[in-house]
Every structure is written in C-alpha cells, then in structure tokens.
C-alpha cells in the first residue's frame, strides 16, 4: 500500500519531468500502473495497466525492442488480422495500423522477421532496422496447407536459435474415438489423427511454401498445444498441452462429474525430437501422479501405464486451458522470476457443472532448467470476480504473453481484446 501511494505521488513529477527524466534514468522510465491495477490482483510491488483496447480477439502477441506491439487476431477486423500498436510516453500504446487479411493465433518476432500463423499457414514479414514491417501486404509463405480439422485449429509457433520453426498441429478430435465426443464410442486403433496432427512439426524458419510432409514430426501424442516456448537455457522446447475433455460425458459409469472436472491434468512437457506424450492412449492423473490408460483404449480410471510415453515435467489443474507459455528472461521483475515460466490459463469450460477455474496468469518457478516447486497464481481476476470465474462468464480471458524490452509482461485477452501490461516498481 505504501509503495503504491508513493508511486501515485510521484506520477505528476514523472509526467512533468518528461524527457529530462528519461535522459537521467539509467534504466527505462517507470511506467505508472492504472488505478486499481486495471482490475488485476498481483503480488506486492507489481502493477498493471491497460495498454490498449483492440476490440478484437487478441490471441498471441509480440513486442519489439522499440516497444511496438504486434497482436494476432483470431478473426480479422476492418484493420486486418495483425494489429500494430505504437507505444506512447505513458507506457500505453495506440493501434496505428493493421495488415494481413486472415485470422489465426501465432505471433513471434525473431531474427529480423515477424512470424504469424493462420489456422493453415505460417507467414513471415521482413522487419526494418526499427522492427517495422517492410511490406505488410507481401509476406513470405513459410509453411502452407497445414492440417485443419474440426477443432483445435490454432497453429501456435516458436523458433529456436538454430533456424528452426516449431508449429503445433492440434488433434482434430477429443480422444480419437470412432465418433468424436459420442458417449461410449471407443478409440480408433493406431489413431490415424497422429499422422497429420496431435503433435509439433518442425520446419526451416527461412523456408518457402513448405508443405507439412516436408517438415518433421518433431513430437507426437500431444492433443493440442496452444502455449509453447523455447527455453534458451536448456536449448529445449517446452509445451503446454490442453488435456482431453469429457471423461464423464463419454464414460459416465467410470467417472462421475466431480472426478471428470479434475481429470486429466493440464501438463507441461519438456520435449526432445522424437518424443511421444501418449495422446490419445493415455491421460495424466495429477492426484495419482501417473499416466492412465484412456477409457477409449481399455482403461477404467485405474489402469496406469508406465512405459513408452514421456512424463510431464509439471502438472496443473484440469481443463484450465494453458494458452501461452513464456520463459521470463527480463531483469525488471525480482530475481526469482528470471528463467521461470509464465503460463496464461485461458479458463475452463469443461468443468461444468462444477465451478469453472483459471482466467489467470500463473508463474512456475524453475531451477536449472526444470520446474521447481508448485506454481503460483501470479496475475488473477481477469474474469472480474469470483462469481464470473465460477460461471465461466469472464470479462477477460488471458491468451497471449510477451516480454517487453524493459522486462514488463504483456498479456492479451481474446474475449474483449484488452492488452494488459504488468510492471514491477520497487
């Protein structure tokens, strides 16, 4: 309380000081949070502000070293499917233009290019010295014609440091049943979905018009990954899987509603080339700490599977829908956050009739490149209230994460299109 009062007291001085203060400060200027931290609940010392209201379904986002924010929309608006937000002196930003007439999810900035994905393709846009898109209407088509089925359409993307692009191709099925999501329908033997989906595909980051078959199926048995990031410390890919839905709806005799709302865990995997995480044959039980045989494939809620499939490196409550993963490398936040992971939990729907959960950004502490200890709820109350969380009628749903040049954390919301920024001021 004391610190925030102090911060507000300082605010007029900062505004008046203007450019002079910029020049004096060795680090970036302080950004003042909005009153009430824009409705978010944060640990002590942190503040939040609304950077901009985009009015679009803001999926993933990227922030350039100059503070320009690029936001990928799930559905293009009149301005386009990618919005350009230019920073202002207050730490907020203004939507100045847009381009790309396609919806999608992926947005990633690296090596002088802005990468963007539709639900079928991956594009990249050359950036100039100030990280501005050179030809908004003429992107390179890096990957074309990715598998797109009836669900799990997001093609999330990330690059490593060796010129490779990783793309999620979500399974076009819940659990590979003969009849998707139908009560009692069993799993298809040798699930054919895995041939073209349910995994991460690797491509050349500078390739042109690569077809899916020209890429490598880098990891399989991952139902749907929306949040993924490259861990530079481990030089390894980490992904967040959306676990399967509807154990009770499909197998009511084996799972009651409460159990079904708690199974399976949302899992974090550290992935190496060739790994198999086991979807649709298994799911992860967070209470038993075991991989369980899926009921579609002969499981009964009790049979565990010990071999063959990789274990998650961390597990989170069921159905919370991790939509973004970000390894924090900044110096603005206290030391404990460095090289740890932020996870945006979009919020559940498949816990009904039990109360819904999520709608927050979590922090997962890391040590030596591995999760270390339990996660913490970092930024909460995107929903607006406990009642809105429980009903699932959330005001905002965190979907994308990006780190600003000063180390602040940007969070996008694909419900109202609000872009939040979380800063540490101590």
């Amino acid at each position, binding site marked *: 309380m004391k610190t925030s009062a102090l911060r507000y007291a300082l605010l007029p001085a900062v505004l008046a000081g203007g450019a002079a203060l910029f020049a004096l400060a060795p680090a970036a200027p302080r950004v003042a949070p909005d009153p009430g931290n824009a409705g978010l609940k944060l640990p002590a010392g942190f503040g939040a502000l609304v950077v901009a209201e985009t009015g679009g379904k803001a999926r993933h986002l990227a922030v350039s070293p100059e503070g320009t924010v690029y936001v990928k929309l799930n559905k293009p608006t009149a301005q386009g499917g990618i919005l350009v937000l230019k920073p202002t002196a207050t730490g907020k930003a203004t939507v100045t233009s847009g381009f790309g007439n396609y919806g999608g999810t992926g947005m990633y900035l690296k090596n002088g290019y802005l990468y963007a994905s539709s639900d079928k393709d991956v594009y990249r846009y050359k950036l100039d010295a100030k990280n501005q898109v050179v030809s908004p209407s003429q992107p390179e088509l890096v990957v074309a014609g990715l598998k797109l089925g*009836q*669900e799990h359409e997001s093609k999330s993307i990330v690059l490593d440091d060796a010129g490779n692009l990783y793309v999620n191709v979500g399974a076009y099925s819940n659990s590979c049943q003969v009849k998707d999501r139908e009560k009692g329908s069993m799993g298809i033997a040798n699930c054919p979905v895995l041939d073209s989906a349910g995994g991460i595909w690797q491509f050349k980051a500078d390739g042109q018009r690569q077809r899916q078959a020209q890429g490598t199926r880098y990891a399989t048995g991952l139902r749907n990954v929306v949040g993924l990031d490259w861990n530079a410390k481990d030089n390894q890919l980490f992904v967040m899987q959306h676990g399967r839905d509807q154990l009770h709806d499909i197998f009511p005799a084996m799972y009651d509603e409460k159990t079904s709302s708690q199974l399976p865990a949302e899992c974090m995997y550290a992935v190496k080339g060739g790994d198999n995480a086991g979807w649709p044959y298994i799911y992860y039980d967070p209470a038993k700490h075991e991989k369980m045989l899926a009921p579609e494939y002969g499981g009964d809620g009790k049979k565990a599977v010990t071999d063959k499939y990789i274990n998650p490196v961390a597990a989170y409550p069921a159905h919370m829908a991790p939509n973004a993963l970000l390894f924090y490398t900044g110096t603005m936040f206290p030391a404990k956050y460095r090289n740890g992971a932020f996870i945006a939990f979009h919020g559940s*729907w498949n816990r*009904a009739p039990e109360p819904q959960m999520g709608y927050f950004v979590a922090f997962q502490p890391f040590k030596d490149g591995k999760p270390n200890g339990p996660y913490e709820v970092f930024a909460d109350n995107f929903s607006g209230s406990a009642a809105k969380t429980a009903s699932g009628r959330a005001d905002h749903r965190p979907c994308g994460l990006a780190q600003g040049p000063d180390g602040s954390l940007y969070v996008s919301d694909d419900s109202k299109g609000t872009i939040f920024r979380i800063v540490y001021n101590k």
Partner: protein
Amino acid sequence: MIRSSLLGASLLLVAALALPGAGPAGAQTKPKAKPKAAAGAPAPALLAQGKQVYIQYCLSCHQADGGGVQNMNPPLTKTEYVLGDKARLTNILVHGFAEKVEIQGETYRNVMPAHDFLTDAQMAAVLTYVRNSFGNKASAISVAEVKATRAAGK
C-alpha cells in the same frame, strides 16, 4: 418407457386439461393460476424432465445458462436453430452437428456429437425445455414429432 409415454400423452392433453397427476404440487397450482397461458406453455413436468436431460447431456458444452463457450460451443439463446424449424433442430440431436455455420455472427470450433441414444421422449423433453429456457419462448416439440423426424431418417 411407461413414464415417457405418459409424458407424451400428457403433452397432447395439456391444452385442454390441468394435467391430472402429471407432476407434484406445481402441476396443480400453475395451470390454475394461468389458465390461458397453458394453451401454449409446456407442462411443468415435461420441462422438469427436459431440464434433467439438459443437465446430464448438454450442460457440459452449452453451460448452465445456455450461453455456450466463446469460440467453442454456441449459445442456445434465441438462435435460429433453437427457435426455428423443429425437424432441423431434432436432427441436430439425432445426427450431431459440425457444419461450422455462423451462429449470431460467430463460428464455433467444437463438434456437437450425435445424441441418438436419447429416447424420443427424452429428445422431445429436452428440446421443449431448451425452446422455453434461457430467454427462449417457442412451441413444444412432441414425441410424435420427434418420432416422425427420426423415421424420416434425415
């Protein structure tokens, strides 16, 4: 079966009668209080049965308030499918639905599985319930109508 055919029969009678024995206390008071409205309004017992089916088989996707889940499962609030043609609506339950059509200006990425395991009476009850809940008001769907739609095969 006995219970459901009874409900089907009571539905046909609802316009004329005050539902003898069809339900608990509600059935005795409601029709008396609003004798005129009873002509179009489905019987409370039928709605209660429909609600049970809804909770068991629809709520996990379309949610308790019928509002659906953004981008995933559509709302059932005043949509043209819910309020419109009864055979089309019934077929959504019988065959499932994955057309990715625009519903009130949005599209939804999940799939609606077939619910052909439901009895004619359960379908009539749940559809009548949906058409008269979440702010909707539309005529009941009878067991005979469900039967006819299912017999037609498509």
